[in-house]
């Protein structure tokens, strides 16, 4: 048994743009591939909650789909529980799907509106041909519902998804993933559609389940503040690349990459006295298209600290700062020093 449950090595996913018939003959309109995920490597440890942070267009959702094997990688390797799972046959894939489950952003959309809660929870059992009589299955469903604190389970089993609140739906979605005793969960923005008042409740529930069952999570989000509370380690993604990776507290209290700094600056804090201040964000414009990734450091077009070197020199690799804290900025320390001088 290794310490690492999921290991991703130099994973890439390029989407080839659609070409019409005429274009493919003439070779005209040759479009560049969309580099959604462009060479990322990270490890998730057993029993760890790993956060993947980024804006929309950063490739975090594509990474989630790659891990779920809903799409095939262009290149690179994936190891799960010590086994190479980069390309899997039909049988192996089914086995993998049993071990790795997914919670989606919109709990309502992730359930067939014509399925009752019972049917929703029974589906994984049917798909994976979990043997057992109706009573045994019902027992498993009840158990899963209890696990996510939907009590009394009998009452919930007969309901339709539209009869539940957002939080309850996400609990059902969690129960659906737990019913097959997975080893890892991929949670793609599981609370972003849920009311703030219940967001914490769901995260709390997910954390309890994780502790109880010793699960590993890949938590994909754009929300740093829940990530800090929820995750052990965080990787920050920008345009298909990981720019910084480390322990959640280190990343937020001591961000080294200018992009991470900008992300943190942008988070609103519920405190008074900010009315007349126009927040100076250390970032320009908006995220470029992944079909057109800038030369050099891919962040230089938006970076206020970018120099000529950042534009011309090849992209910086992730380098170690302190224990478990890596960053991909060649000017990280200079910028830090500059900032200190400025106060």
């Amino acid at each position, binding site marked *: 048994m290794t310490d690492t449950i999921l290991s991703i090595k130099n994973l890439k996913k390029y989407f080839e743009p659609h070409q019409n018939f005429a274009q493919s003959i003439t070779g005209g309109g040759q479009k560049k591939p969309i580099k959604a995920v462009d060479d990322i490597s990270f490890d998730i440890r057993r029993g760890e909650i790993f956060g993947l942070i980024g*804006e929309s267009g950063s490739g975090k959702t594509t990474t989630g789909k790659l891990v779920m094997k809903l799409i095939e990688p262009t290149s690179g390797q994936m190891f799960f529980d010590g086994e190479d799972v980069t390309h899997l046959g039909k049988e192996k894939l089914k086995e993998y799907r049993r071990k790795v489950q997914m919670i989606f952003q919109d709990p309502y959309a992730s359930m067939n509106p014509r399925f009752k809660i019972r049917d929703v929870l029974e589906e994984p059992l049917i798909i994976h041909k979990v043997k057992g009589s109706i009573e045994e299955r019902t027992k498993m469903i009840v158990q899963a519902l209890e696990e996510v604190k939907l009590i009394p389970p009998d009452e919930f089993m007969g309901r339709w998804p539209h009869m539940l609140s957002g939080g309850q739906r996400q609990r059902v979605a969690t129960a659906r993933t737990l019913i097959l005793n997975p080893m890892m969960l991929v949670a793609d923005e599981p609370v972003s559609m849920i009311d703030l*008042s219940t967001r914490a409740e769901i995260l709390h529930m997910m954390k309890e389940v994780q502790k109880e069952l010793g699960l590993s999570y890949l938590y994909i989000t754009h*929300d740093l503040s829940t990530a800090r509370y929820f995750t052990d380690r965080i990787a920050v993604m920008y345009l298909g690349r990981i720019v910084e990776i480390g322990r959640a507290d280190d990343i937020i209290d001591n961000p080294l990459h200018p992009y991470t700094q900008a992300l943190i600056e942008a988070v*609103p804090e519920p405190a008074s006295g900010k009315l007349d201040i126009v927040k100076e964000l250390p970032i320009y414009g908006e995220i470029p298209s992944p079909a057109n990734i800038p030369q050099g450091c891919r962040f230089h077009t938006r970076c206020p600290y970018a120099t000529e070197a950042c534009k011309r020199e090849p992209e910086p690799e992730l380098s170690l700062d302190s224990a478990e804290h890596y960053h991909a900025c060649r000017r990280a320390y200079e910028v830090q020093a500059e900032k200190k001088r400025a106060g």
Partner: protein
Amino acid sequence: MDSLLKVENLQMHYFTSKGAVRAIDDINFELMPGETIGLVGESGCGKTSLGTSILRMPTPPGRYVGGRILVDGVDVIPLPEREVRKNVRWQKISMVFQGAMNCLTPVYTIGRQMMETLNEHSDLSRSDAESLITEYLGYVGLPPEIVQRYPHELSGGMKQRAVIATALFLKPEIVILDEPTTALDVIVQAQIINLLKKLKKQFSLSFMFITHDLALEAEISDRICVMYAGKIVELGTNAQIYGTQGPAHPYTERLLAATPRLFKKVEQLQFIPGTPPDLIDPPKGCRFSPRCDKAFDKCFQEEPPLIEIEPGHMSACWLHRRG
């Protein structure tokens, strides 16, 4: 100073087959010139309903049941629709609807869609309208070429900027912003908030900023109006709500505690158990009482009035009377 907008005892119910949903139940507040008032609350508490009601276009099957909406001293509820369209909507009050940026028609260019709004509410000539559009695109930080672009060619932030520009065309005094940043990334959200602050000064606008995110309200709203189950439970200045003293109403308090903070590492985030009540048959007494951990006998019996607990700070909770 006279208020721009005064809402008095406003009641708006949705008449459904199951009964009347009391989405807005006796709401009173004023909006001063140049002020931003923030409306917060969980989903389903009546924030958006209040927004559309003030624009005098309640979503069917909603109907006004009582109260007045005074815009510059004139009650707009009894006005005929033609009059509202000519003199009130978009001229005095405009609105950025929730998810408006995702409701742009994919088959028309941005410019054409902006033009349509202009035509509906004014009778400018084509060239005048075009120059107006270019002018306002400049104000929201978009290049004029954008008029020839289709919605799918723009990012979420750019679309939201275009929507905001559209809301400002006819120089309204009040702009209702319904969750203008919810679907956006944090960085874009911060950029939009900065833009709104700039526009507010530039055009001396008053905003009604609707969101469920208390942290966001702290950035932009002069006064915060907390709604729960169709009623205002607390209304206070930014300093009163977010200051060291903290909010007065238990609901606001718990909502604030449930808002995750980036720089405060906590072991356990707070949350409010349960869900907002059914507004067809709201609970007796204080509507928050079933979910409130501080509730006592009286809370379940009688509805607390909205009282002034300090100058400019209103709250509806029996705890204030208890001392």
